[in-house]
């Protein structure tokens, strides 16, 4: 029974840690399937988290905070789009630049506006997302096995968490069952063919970049409005890069993204819980190894030792209509 309890607790924190990863990885899925590489997920999330924290504090409204997060993130996405689609510049360079600009300006602006060392003031209950209690969660708590599972694991998360998990099938549906999705994937594989069919490659890629901005915005808002009560300096702490790793680990597919993010989230939750714990047979596992594991796994996958991750063919290549 105790083992089961531990399992539920671990699973619960896995879900919490995975939420922003899922949103950010899905965000990356939209742009990268359209042929625009994006290593600026980290920066967009951070900018969104800051916007959410500041606006939610000023307006005392969590929805205004969410809206601000999405706006800022979309704006940053458009900068990335302008550089990499219209100006045909280096997509890597643009992503790195966005990460830097956001990392610096969130601290400078936060300090100038709130004077709390780069933090935004702590949010009251109105300024944050509460948790949703599923129906009968309390009544079913005592039921053996099913009770903890339902009330402990499925119930009691932030609405954004449910949204994140819902976005997995929704993204799948958009990408694989709509005309927009088909064209979006086509533009990432063979933009020339899409152009020949009379569809604007540029506009399609811009729409993909905007989709990415929206999802990154929600991911950022989750960090400062749901997981924490406000923004703290550098609060994404590499989550954008882990999401990028998850996206590659998932071979650019929505369903796999869910499992990759849950796996990386689980590693994180596990590392926090079992820090300094001596396991039978292996003994103490250094916490640093657990932290590095998502990256190591991604490298091994990329090397083709566990399956092969094949990126979209036209990924990273700006489209030139005529030569």
């Amino acid at each position, binding site marked *: 029974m105790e083992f089961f309890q531990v399992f539920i607790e671990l699973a619960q924190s896995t879900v919490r840690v995975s939420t922003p990863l899922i949103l950010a990885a899905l965000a990356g899925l939209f742009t990268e399937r359209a042929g625009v*590489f994006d*290593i600026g997920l980290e920066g967009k999330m951070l900018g969104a988290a800051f916007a959410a924290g500041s606006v939610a504090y000023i307006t005392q409204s969590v929805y205004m905070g969410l809206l601000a997060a999405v706006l800022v993130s979309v704006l940053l996405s458009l*900068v990335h789009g*302008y*550089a*990499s689609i219209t*100006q*045909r*510049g*280096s*997509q*890597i*360079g*643009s992503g*790195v*630049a*966005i*990460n*830097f*600009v*956001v*990392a*610096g*300006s969130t*601290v*400078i*602006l936060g*300090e*100038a506006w709130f004077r709390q060392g*780069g933090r935004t003031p702590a949010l009251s209950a109105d300024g944050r997302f509460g948790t949703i209690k599923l129906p009968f969660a309390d009544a079913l708590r005592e039921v053996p096995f099913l009770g903890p599972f339902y009330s402990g694991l499925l119930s009691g998360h932030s609405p954004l968490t449910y949204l994140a998990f819902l976005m997995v099938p929704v993204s799948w549906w958009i990408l694989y069952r709509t005309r927009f999705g088909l064209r979006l994937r086509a533009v990432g594989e063979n933009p020339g063919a899409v152009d020949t069919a009379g569809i604007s490659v540029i506009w399609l890629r811009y729409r993909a970049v905007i989709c990415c901005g929206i999802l990154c915005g929600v991911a950022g808002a989750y960090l400062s409005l749901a997981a924490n009560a406000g923004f703290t300096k550098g609060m994404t702490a*590499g989550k954008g*890069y882990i999401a*990028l*790793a998850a996206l*590659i680990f998932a071979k650019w597919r929505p369903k796999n993204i869910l499992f990759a993010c849950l796996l990386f989230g689980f590693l994180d939750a596990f590392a926090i819980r079992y820090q300094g714990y001596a396991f039978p047979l292996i003994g103490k596992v*250094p916490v*640093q*190894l657990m*932290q*590095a594991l998502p*990256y*190591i796994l*991604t*490298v091994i996958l*990329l*090397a*083709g030792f566990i399956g092969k*991750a094949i*990126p979209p063919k036209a990924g990273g290549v700006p489209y030139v209509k005529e*030569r």
Partner: protein
Amino acid sequence: MSVPHAKLPAWAEYGLIPLVNLAVAFLISGLVVLIVGESPLEAAYHMINGAFGRGEYIGFTLYYTTPFIFTGLAGAVAFHCGLFNIGGEGQAYVGGIGVALACLAFDRTLPWYLVFPIAIAGAAFFGALWALIPGWLQARRGSHIVITTIMFNFIAASLMNYLLNKVFKPLGSMSLETRTFDTGGQLPKLDWLMSIFGLSVGSAPFNISFLLALLAAFGVWVLIWRTKLGYEMRTMGHSPAAARYAGIKESRIIIITMMISGGLAGMMALNPIMGEQFRMQLDFVQGAGFVGIAVALMGRSHPAGIIPAALLFGMLYQGGAEISFEMPSISRDMIVIIQGLVILFAGALEHMFRPAITRIVLGLSPKARDVAATKGA
């Protein structure tokens, strides 16, 4: 591929365009200063004065410039081969192991001028090693160098955290650093160089690794433009298909390029470890690996451009420290913004102003127009 724009004379190509891009980056940074409610002109004054106002300030500026030359060269060597090495940060970090091992082993028995070459070799070795794996993966397994080098930055951070915790930390110490090196592990300051110009270096840790950086810059110039290997690297960078057709071994060149790039990044570790702190600390790289990308982009991957670009960032770091001292609402994070904007405008949006500049330049000088007519689009 056709040339999208008419060819510009060299002074416009290598002087005017980077300057305009830089000016825009600084203008936008000035806007941020305005938003914060401070005067951009005052900030600019403090920056220039803080970077060059006294001999000691110049010493600090050059101290900060040194690692950026190394990491800028590291980025440039990879660029020439068409590789985007974002792993400079991790390679520099791991390169620190080589420096620390050399110093810890010999600082009590050998003089610095014997420890220095061992430390250089160690830094280059470990840096190259950390770049070898992504290079090998790119060359042999086709995994994207950008992604693997990002991953290796994080793996390096975890690895170094572990090593400092479990291996390098002296017994009973709480802080994550090695013991302080004896005189054998301490590089001499370049006060004699400063005194030639009648300046005093003061407390600035401006040290001999600066000269090594200049030497490395010359070495990179020779490598890229005066050797067969450099020619093969540039061919690969321009057209992998042409390189393959010419019988150049693609994977060999990729791996060698990445090792040289990583070795250069690793040598950056000499400056903070042997030149200032005399011990290896947690996070001693301080983002120099990423600045290297900006430096390489700004310097157009040429050593003659990289040295002034590195100096610019050295000025930003030293002057930025001075600004944050004089104007508390502008912390050193301002540098991070400027750095990002420089990468954006000098890198990703490099061609944004080119059509306008081309029109103006070619309109102004009939001679340039003739050149464009013969060479151009």
